[in-house]
């Protein structure tokens, strides 16, 4: 339903644009049709005007003949011929086949009339068609008197109804009258070309013909122009424009029966446009029709409607597509957003699953609001107190080990300030159960405002306690004697170097003692290595009790130990400690239900008096220790021969 709603505006645009296109197309087509029709009407008017003018000229010509009879009364054949010759009817009158004279002959006069005609040079003259009529009007003369025209001599047009009506109409009005469509008497049976007559009455000279009755009484005959329609039209130069078909019908009804003339078009297909007009020529109606062929339409049509239709449709469809884009943009954006959100959720779920599965927690800090969100795993680590969202960053910081806090904050601020791309710091965090865990925390800024101020920071947190413990254990094993858990030679050497460096900087003294157990080997041989090891562990324990926490006791050989006293006050202080150790080791040992008695020989070297570096100091301390051995064991020997020798330097039981 919602989808349909989205399509309604698009549908409206489509319908409106197509409707507008249709209206514009129709409007343009109507205008073009009207233009073409108007052009055709103009052509029709030109044609009818030419016909009317030409027929008026013929009428004038015939009136001239009428005038001849009016002026002269009796006109002989020779005078009639001379008059027609004098008219010099040229090409413009080529439509006139002939001009004839038809005097009225009453039945009583018929024989004498025929006889006279035969005497006057027409031996075969007879009035035809045969038959008794109340009046005859045979062609007594026809000009020019050649060829087929002579065939009309003796023909009585009153015999034919069409001709008779026109002749009577001319007689009654005194005006020129056109006959209807006829087959001309001058044509033989094989010729089938329509023709017509133009008839003008001749009245007896001196007789009034003002009224219809006068005219009917005074009529003496008619002068008749004989026309063949096709020849008449051919004489109208510029008969028509190319691409037009002209038809002329007798009367007001266009039909094949009434067809007077059919002009053939030289080119073009069937006509789509037609114009017609009924003209009145000498009291007779002709219907003139012109038909425009396709070639005329092509030449004169300004019809651009198809172009409008095409352009309008394309534009409309384009508009529809654009409106569809606009109308559905939001829906499509929402759909894309939903897809993206879905993909993001899926992705987040995957990442969450991966991170949670890997034991990592995820945090997301909005800098401006201070809102800090944790993943479920992170909340489980810190608990409600430390991990609640509303505690924010301060809640998190409160869980960081105080010793690690400064470094952690410095690293965090550096990242937030953009100095480092990543925040990565290992520090201890107090879990909700109160235990401290080493955690590695990573983060990065993912959003800034226009000024470059960080807006959002996301990251992960992982518990690395086990890794740290493992690393610590390995490191411890590498630096300590596994039997006594005392620092081994490597760690001791490292601490010696550190102590010397500090002493040099602070102007302090350092004491280095080499301690070797006396008579240890017999015990080892007598009681076995296990007991020997127990003894060594006990020795180490007693030695550690004799020194400060800041001092170092290390085992560097089977029964060899070293002691480092950094920041010792004087040689006397060092000697006192050494003596304390010697005394502690000289006490009886009861181990594994055995009584054991050992002692120790201790050589003491002091920095800076007995050497400025670890090697010199070690060598001198070792030398002193040997001297103590040589002097009877169970003794403390200072490097006295190189320092200030004195009785107190050597102690013995």
């Amino acid at each position: 339903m919602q989808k349909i709603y989205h399509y309604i505006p698009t549908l409206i645009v489509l319908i409106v644009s197509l409707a507008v296109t249709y209206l514009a197309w129709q409007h343009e087509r109507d205008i073009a049709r009207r233009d073409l029709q108007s052009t055709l009407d103009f052509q029709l008017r030109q044609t009818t005007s030419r016909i009317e003018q030409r027929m008026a000229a013929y009428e004038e010509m015939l009136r001239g003949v009428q005038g001849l009879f009016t002026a002269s009364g009796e006109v002989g054949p020779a005078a009639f011929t001379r008059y027609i010759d004098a008219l010099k009817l040229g090409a413009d009158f080529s439509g006139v086949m002939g001009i004839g004279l038809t005097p009225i002959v009453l039945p009583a006069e018929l024989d004498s009339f025929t006889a006279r005609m035969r005497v006057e040079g027409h031996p075969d003259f007879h009035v035809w068609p045969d038959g008794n009529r109340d009046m005859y009007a045979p062609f007594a003369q026809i000009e020019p008197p050649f060829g087929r025209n002579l065939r009309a001599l003796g023909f009585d047009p009153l015999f034919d109804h069409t001709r008779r009506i026109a002749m009577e109409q001319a007689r009654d009005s005194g005006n020129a009258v056109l006959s209807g469509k006829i087959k001309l008497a001058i044509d033989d049976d094989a010729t089938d070309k329509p023709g017509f007559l133009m008839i003008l009455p001749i009245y007896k000279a001196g007789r009034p013909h003002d009224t219809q009755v006068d005219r009917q009484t005074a009529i003496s005959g008619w002068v008749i122009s004989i026309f063949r329609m096709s020849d008449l039209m051919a004489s109208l130069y510029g008969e028509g424009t190319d691409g037009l078909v002209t038809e002329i019908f007798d009367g007001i009804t266009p039909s094949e029966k009434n067809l007077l003339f059919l002009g053939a078009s030289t080119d073009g297909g069937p006509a789509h446009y037609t114009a017609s007009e009924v003209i009145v020529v000498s009291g007779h109606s002709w219907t003139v029709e012109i038909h425009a062929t396709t070639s005329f339409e092509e030449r004169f049509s300004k019809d651009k409607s198809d172009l409008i239709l095409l352009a309008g449709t394309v534009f409309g469809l384009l508009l529809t597509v654009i409106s569809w884009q606009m109308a559905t943009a939001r829906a499509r954006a929402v759909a894309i957003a939903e897809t993206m959100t879905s993909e993001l959720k899926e992705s987040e779920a995957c990442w969450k699953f991966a991170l949670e599965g890997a034991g990592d927690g995820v945090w997301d800090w909005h800098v401006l609001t201070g809102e800090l969100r944790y993943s479920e795993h992170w909340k489980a680590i810190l608990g409600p107190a430390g991990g609640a969202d509303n505690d924010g960053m301060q809640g998190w910081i409160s869980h960081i080990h105080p010793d690690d806090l400064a470094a952690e904050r410095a690293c965090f601020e550096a990242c937030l300030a953009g100095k480092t791309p990543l925040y990565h710091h290992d520090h201890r965090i107090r879990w909700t159960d109160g235990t401290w865990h080493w955690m590695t925390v990573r983060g990065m800024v993912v959003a800034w405002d226009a000024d470059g101020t960080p807006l959002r920071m996301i990251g992960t947190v992982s518990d690395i306690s086990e890794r740290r413990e493992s690393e610590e254990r390995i490191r411890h094993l590498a630096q300590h004697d596994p039997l006594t858990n005392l620092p081994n030679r490597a760690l001791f050497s490292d601490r010696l170097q550190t102590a010397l460096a500090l002493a040099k900087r602070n102007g302090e003294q350092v004491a280095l003692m080499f301690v070797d157990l006396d008579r240890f080997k017999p015990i080892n041989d007598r009681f076995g290595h296990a007991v020997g090891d127990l003894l060594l562990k006990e020795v180490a324990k007693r030695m550690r009790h004799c020194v400060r926490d800041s001092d170092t006791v290390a085992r560097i050989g089977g029964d060899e130990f070293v002691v480092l006293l950094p920041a010792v006050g004087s040689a006397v202080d060092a000697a006192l400690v050494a003596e304390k150790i010697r005394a502690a080791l000289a006490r009886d040992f009861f181990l594994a239900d055995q009584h054991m008695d050992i002692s120790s020989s201790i050589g003491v070297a002091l920095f800076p008096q007995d050497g400025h570096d670890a090697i010199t100091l070690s060598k001198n301390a070792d030398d002193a220790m040997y001297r103590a051995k040589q002097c009877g064991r169970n003794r403390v020997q200072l490097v006295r021969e190189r320092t200030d020798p004195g009785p107190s330097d050597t102690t013995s039981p």
Partner: protein
Amino acid sequence: MAWPPQLLLIAAFAGFASFVNAAEPPDCSRPFTLALHDHGLLYSSETDKGIDKDVSDELIARSGCKVTVSLMPRARIWQLIESGALDFSLSGITNSERDVFASFAWYFSNKYYLLVRNDTGVHQLADFERAPHLRLGVIRSFRFGPGANAFVDGLLERQRVVYAGGLPPLYEMLMADRIQGMIIEPFDYPALQEQSIRAATRIVEFNDPSVLHGLIMSRKSLPANELEKWRNIIVSMRRYGALLNIFRKYFPDDIADTMVNY
């Protein structure tokens, strides 16, 4: 208020004297041409009679000039009046275009009517306009009153106008149902078939005022002062009843009076 008879007599004499002064005869130093058109009671070529024929006879007689009268289609008459090849014609009406090339001497006034076939069912102009199959027959170049002109022009745009060269073919087409309506004037009924046409048709009026008809004079062939002289002849024909007498030959007296005394 009644005027004393002596005063009326003096006024009449003064009017006549002023008219006589004004009625200088036209210059007859050349023959003139006048064309009639075959148009109902105005002129019928079949009978060689009509109002225009009578008016032209009277006009020619009063002018004392040689005037050749001929018959031609109305459209051709207007063309020749415009070109100056024809001097006069009769029963013309004007418009802005014709005023440019023709001058008129009015002598009657009448209304135009739509003549429609009874079988069309048309009772108002709108009925005719609404029926797309109905065709109107019009004589080419004829103009009418404003309402009738608009009616014709509207139909012309929809290609519903059939042109003819004169009234006879229009009546013939109307009776043959090739056209269903035509615009006529009171004198347009043909003398011979009047009854049969009246029986088959009805009249619908246009809302136009009466339109003046008059002698058409070509401005191109006649100088302005000559136009005035010819116009004075028509004025005198109206003033002294010659025109009324002519119209009374063809119409009942009351209709003739209405047409001439507009």
